[in-house]
């Protein structure tokens, strides 16, 4: 850390402290803005998660404030960048509570940062809407913690139900060795028997590997493999599907929801053709049926986001979209910005049609999603095509 950096941080902290004392004066508290905190991994290895989330929350806040705010009160965002570091996230979580006095927190881009911040918000009794994938975040249910992304189990289940529909029963799993992929691999193995799927071969790859032909060679050598499932995220699955094409493999290929982005298709350079994946409805955009309840919010978010940032929407921004709107809707319904009332209203969310899924929270389900938010899509001509559901 250089001197300028230290000085910069110092002034920021002073500024925040001054602002905190200012807002704490009772006369101001009543009409002051509603403070919502967000600790996101805007930079660092998880920046692909935090970056669209930051852009999304800023865009939505502007939209709400332009309409006069919630119940006449404007929203004030306090965003911190944890750089993907769980320790930093915890520090910022404490700062949100002690200095910034937020009434709700929407953030936590990764499972790691979320898990480290979770006790802080539980203790302070501030509602915490997380963007973490893992189920541990809401299971067992914690009073103040909610999350928006589908779990890895749901992705596995969606893939397996498609396999079952195609009458494929024995698969090879080629998983990454990063946290996301490991977790999804474990969930897939655990849920496979429910769909009569047998995992007959397992391989793995590192998140920075640049050639997966040895693994694929082994899979090719197993005659009983009927399909290949790749739990993985980042660049490695893109290289894997390139190698898949290079080696002219023809087995049905499934990749994870972690690579549900146009970037993946582009990086795969044609290798992803024919591959299937579970994708949130958001990514289908105008390919969603006209009577699809998610079509309207999806089109609105996509249009606004792309116009504002010039970048395509991603599922990760969608987690923020749904989470943030559920919280602001809760504040609106509660007609109060008291943390406890916000929490109660978030938990009372019924059929909130988001871009990532349709949520119905209950006291025992703080994720509130079923399998419908995921759609199986096939990559064709560099784009997603929905695969018709077979029941």
């Amino acid at each position, binding site marked *: 850390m250089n001197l300028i950096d230290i000085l910069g941080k110092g002034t920021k902290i002073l500024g925040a402290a001054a602002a905190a004392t200012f807002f704490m004066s009772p006369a101001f508290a009543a009409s002051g803005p509603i403070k919502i905190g967000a600790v996101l991994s805007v930079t660092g290895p998880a920046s692909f998660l935090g970056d669209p989330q930051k852009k999304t929350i800023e865009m939505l806040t502007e939209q709400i404030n332009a309409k006069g705010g919630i119940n006449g009160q404007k929203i004030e965002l306090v965003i911190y960048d944890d750089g993907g570091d769980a320790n930093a996230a915890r520090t910022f979580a404490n700062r949100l509570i002690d200095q910034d006095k937020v009434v709700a927190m929407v953030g936590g881009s990764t499972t790691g940062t979320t898990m480290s911040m979770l006790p802080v918000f539980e203790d302070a009794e501030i509602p915490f809407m997380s963007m973490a994938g893992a189920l541990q975040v809401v299971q067992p249910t914690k009073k103040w913690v909610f999350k928006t992304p589908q779990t890895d189990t749901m992705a596995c289940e969606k893939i397996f139900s498609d396999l079952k529909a195609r009458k494929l029963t024995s698969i090879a799993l080629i998983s990454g060795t990063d946290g996301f992929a490991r977790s999804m691999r474990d969930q897939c193995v655990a849920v496979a028997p429910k769909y009569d799927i047998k995992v007959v071969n397992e391989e793995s790859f590192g998140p920075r590997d*640049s050639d997966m032909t*040895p693994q694929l060679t082994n899979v090719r050598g197993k005659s009983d493999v009927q399909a290949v499932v790749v739990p993985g995220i980042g660049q490695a699955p893109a290289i894997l599907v390139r190698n898949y094409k290079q080696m002219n493999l023809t087995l049905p290929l499934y990749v994870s929801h972690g690579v549900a982005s146009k970037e993946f298709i582009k990086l795969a350079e044609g290798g992803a053709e024919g591959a299937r994946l579970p994708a949130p409805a958001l990514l289908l955009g105008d390919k969603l049926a006209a009577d699809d309840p998610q079509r309207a919010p999806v089109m609105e978010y996509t249009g606004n986001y792309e116009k504002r940032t010039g970048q395509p929407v991603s599922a990760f921004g969608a987690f923020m979209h749904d989470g943030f709107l559920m919280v602001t809707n809760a504040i609106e319904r509660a007609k109060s910005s008291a943390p406890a009332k916000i929490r109660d209203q978030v938990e009372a969310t019924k059929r909130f049609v988001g871009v990532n899924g349709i949520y119905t929270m209950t006291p025992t389900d703080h994720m509130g999603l079923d399998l419908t938010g995921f759609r199986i899509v096939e990559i064709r001509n560099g784009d997603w095509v929905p695969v018709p559901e077979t029941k």
Partner: protein
Amino acid sequence: MTTDLVQYVLSGITVGAVYALVALGFTLIYNASHVANFAQGDFAMIGAMTAVFVSASGVPMVAAILVGTAAAAATGYLLYQFAIDRARGSPVLGLIVLTIGAGIFIKGVAQLVFDKRFHSLPPWFGDHPINILGATILPQSIVVLCGGAIVVTGLALFTSRTLLGKGMLAASQNTLAAYLVGMNVRVIVALAFVISAAIGGLAGILAAPVTLASYDAGTLLSLKGFAAAMLGGMGSPAGAILGGLLLGLVEAFGGGLISSAYKDSFAFLVILVVLFVRPQGLLGEQSRDRV
């Protein structure tokens, strides 16, 4: 089974060729300054990312390659001028730590100048795999190999045939004597940084269509390149190439024949064994202390 083994070999040299080129850069700087430069992988990243962005702006590929290589070379010069040269006289360990810091700094700057996404370059000669005994290799991997061969040959000619190249050898063998015969050793060490960075940059560009490029790709390349250079023998250019290819092959065969989960462990295990048996590396020269 033959097909499988050939596939492992092809995979190994695809991966190993990149390690080899990074290791070569390590060797050059080590020879000139006895510093293991851990920003070496970041040169490759700078080269690749610059080429990606330049070619995306519509510049022809050849020009993008040149600009990318030049950007890496410039980074190498800046690293020498503003870090290594300032700290000359510090112990070698201090300089090595300095290069680690420089690597982190370069990564940070690249994140701001470029972006945080993964990028790829279009392959030069299409993406139709070449079939060898049923196994396949992408044309671009052969480009990396050929590029590596050309760089090694060029470097060998440079050090053996040109006065400047011989000067580099002389300065690395005996710095004091080189000073005494009137050579400007600082210029020569600076040159070693520039050439080594250019090689790193070129390696990154050649490999980008296969391995993809991102701002944080350098760290792992540095580690693997360093491992390859140690394996082959620090200071030996031929050893760097051998070490790189060997490392790639061990990873491919370990991953293919035994278990892909422990692929990296095999590579490091082999390095450990080699270094126990031959601490100077496969082709390294035994260091002798004069009394």
